């Protein structure tokens, strides 16, 4: 049996709920599909309840008022998340979660309004560029996966230096294939931190775990990858 921080046999993956979070149940479902235990984390509790990894799910935390993620990043639960990230805990930010991780400084850059200025919901092909992060080892490099994208502020921007650094270090994890859906620089759909433990992406892998309710089950790979990373650790 592996040595998990949680001390249990299956890894425990926490899913945070902020006021206005929408895809928390879906992220928890994906975690369970992949074989891990989902633990719900409440925004107002500065407590990670012994989890081995954390997902910051999608939605409209605090209505996305002011800026997406701007208010949520100050929530009490984010203190221990930032601390755990520093120690290398796998963290995944999906859509609004990605925006929150950027606002919190765990990932560089920011997400701005889609170039066509409206919300876009569509099944989006992504190319997997980096297969060594905690959330992407189950994919083949260069593989194309079909994942729903649904966001109004998904355009990734960063200063030229930051962008060059990300590209230079191979920290772009996923890239949009075909038409750029939101004006993202370099077609960036998802990035990682320098250690490859924190990943943020705009598309929703938790909506692609079953061909019944999604366009594919291509998203499961991210959750499997994290479980692999935890069990090996």
């Amino acid at each position: 049996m592996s040595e998990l921080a949680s001390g249990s046999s299956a890894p425990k993956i926490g899913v945070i709920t902020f006021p206005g979070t929408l895809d928390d149940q879906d992220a928890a479902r994906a975690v369970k599909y992949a074989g891990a235990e989902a633990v719900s984390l409440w925004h107002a509790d500065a407590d990670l309840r012994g989890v081995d990894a954390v997902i910051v799910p999608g939605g409209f935390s605090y209505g996305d008022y002011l800026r997406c993620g701007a208010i949520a990043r100050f929530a009490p639960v984010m203190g221990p998340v930032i601390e755990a990230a520093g120690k290398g805990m796998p963290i995944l930010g999906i859509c609004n979660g990605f925006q929150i991780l950027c606002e919190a400084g765990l990932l560089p850059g920011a997400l701005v309004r889609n170039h066509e200025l409206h919300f876009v919901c569509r099944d989006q092909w992504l190319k997997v560029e980096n297969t060594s992060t905690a959330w992407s080892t189950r994919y083949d490099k260069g593989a194309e996966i079909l994942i729903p994208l649904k966001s109004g502020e998904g355009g990734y921007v960063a200063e030229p230096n930051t962008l060059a650094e990300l590209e230079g270090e191979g920290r772009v994890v996923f890239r949009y294939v075909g038409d750029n859906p939101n004006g993202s620089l370099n077609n960036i759909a998802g990035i990682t931190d320098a250690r490859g433990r924190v990943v943020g992406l705009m598309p929703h892998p938790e909506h692609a775990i079953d061909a019944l309710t999604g366009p594919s089950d291509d998203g499961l790979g991210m959750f499997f990858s994290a479980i692999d990373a935890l069990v090996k650790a």
Partner: protein
Amino acid sequence: MTANNAVNTDTVKHAESTPELAQPYRELGLKDDEYQRIREILGRRPTDAELAMYSVMWSEHCSYKSSKVHLSYFGKTTTEQMRSKMLAGIGENAGVVDIGDGWAVTFKVESHNHPSYVEPYQGAATGVGGIVRDIMAMGARPLAVMDSLRFGPADAPDTRRVLPGVVAGVGGYGNCLGLPNIGGEVVFDSTYLGNPLVNALCVGAMRVEDLHLAHASGTGNKIILFGARTGLDGIGGVSVLASDTFSGDETTAGRKKLPSVQVGDPFTEKVLIECCLELFREGIVVGIQDLGGAGLSCATSELASAGDGGMHVNLDRVPLRAKGMTPAEILSSESQERMCAVVKPSDVDAFMKVCAKWDVTATEIGEVTDTGRLVITWHDEVVVDVPPRTVAHEGPVYNRPVQRPVEQDSLQQPIDLARPSTSDLRDLVLRMVGSHNLSSRNWVTDQYDRYVRGGTVLSQPADSGMIRIDEESGRGVALSVDCNGRYCKLDPYTGAQLALAEAYRNVAVSGATPVAVTNCLNFGSPEDPGVMWQFEQAVRGLADGCVELGIPVTGGNVSFYNQTGTTAILPTPVVGVLGVIDDVRRRIPTGIGAEAGETLLLLGN
């Protein structure tokens, strides 16, 4: 300021001592005889606050005064057999049906046509917000929305103002609430140019035992207002009271120009949903009522009227967003994202705790009494003292003149249509493919989240939307909303049946069994006998069709006065059909030719 208000307030005592005071009831939309009836009911003239309440509750929108006599036909034609799965029907916030395995599903369509013309984004957004609160009030978790839209010609300049705003509003609100949009309609026709239709549907589910019908029972139970603060939203009509009564007072007179635009706050509503569901789960509410079109007037009078006693409300307690609001304004405000609950005194602390957890403002504003009267006080003075049923349920009922329009015959004239030749067909097909009414709806549906909640198994481009209700068993429901206004114009009776049949078929072909019907009847002015004829015919057609199919109408909504000048919109009875499927894995997706060798069959003749 406060003292000043108290002096100026039109109390019951003041009304008794000034019986002859002229009141602006006509400006508030009341007819002479309606005003007289109010005086008879009360045995005196109404106060400003009472007048505000009656006028809004006796409006067409709230009282169904022109449609009631016709809508009763639905009840008359619904057999016991059809009723067998119905847990709540017409008259409740939304219809409820038993779908098996202990699940109850509630669904309803509602119009928000006029507000969406004035301010497309906010009008459509608050339309979605309103229908979702209706579903919440039943004790259900809202699960999905649909939207049925009508616009003027796609290339008309005003359509370019209205359509993008409406679509962004439906999406903006629904996406932020976390409700998948699983279907709808977009139709263009010149009659909708000055009067677009925005009909929103919401469906929700609960365990059968969790069904909550809103009523204020149990003397001593507390009335709690929770959610957003009350502001000067949507009370344009009522501001004539302020200005007429206090002419000379500049602050109130200035309000006449208020735009009656309500701004939606989907975030507050999302939190309100979670808060309500937790309140229901904890079993600490007797009943919940949403604050819809007529705000507190509606919520308090309906709760009291459906209960077994009376109610006392202290208006001073209502948390306000604007300064210097009068009782009439507070009662008529249409501020969004508010709910009213009836709570046992022993549960009030627990109730407040749940609200605090979700950061929802909650205020005890009154209690259930045994007086049989709805009494509302302001600064310790009585400003409303009425029998609640007379406000909520015993409004005027009209038997409006009904007259088949003379031009109906010419519409029915058979015209000799030449059989098209092969070359005509090519042109015809090209014209159809290029028409806005048949174009792709992706520009619209791409702005709606169809994935959230992870239970959507069919959505665009399928014929019906389908969601999973029970994750274990796979039990789910399918829904379709349909209407062809041109058919209804030609023959409203058959047209309504065609709408029903289309929605029924759309549900059936997805693999679900149709079980219940809701509707949103969009028509012109009820004061036009021709329109009333269309309305009567459509209701009869729909009801008779339902009997034929053996499924009941569980609820609906009527929207009259949809017209530009004297030109009415096409009669548009939008019909929604709900179906049940045991296991959504057995759904039938739309599309042919997925596999080579498939056989194509044409059914029917």
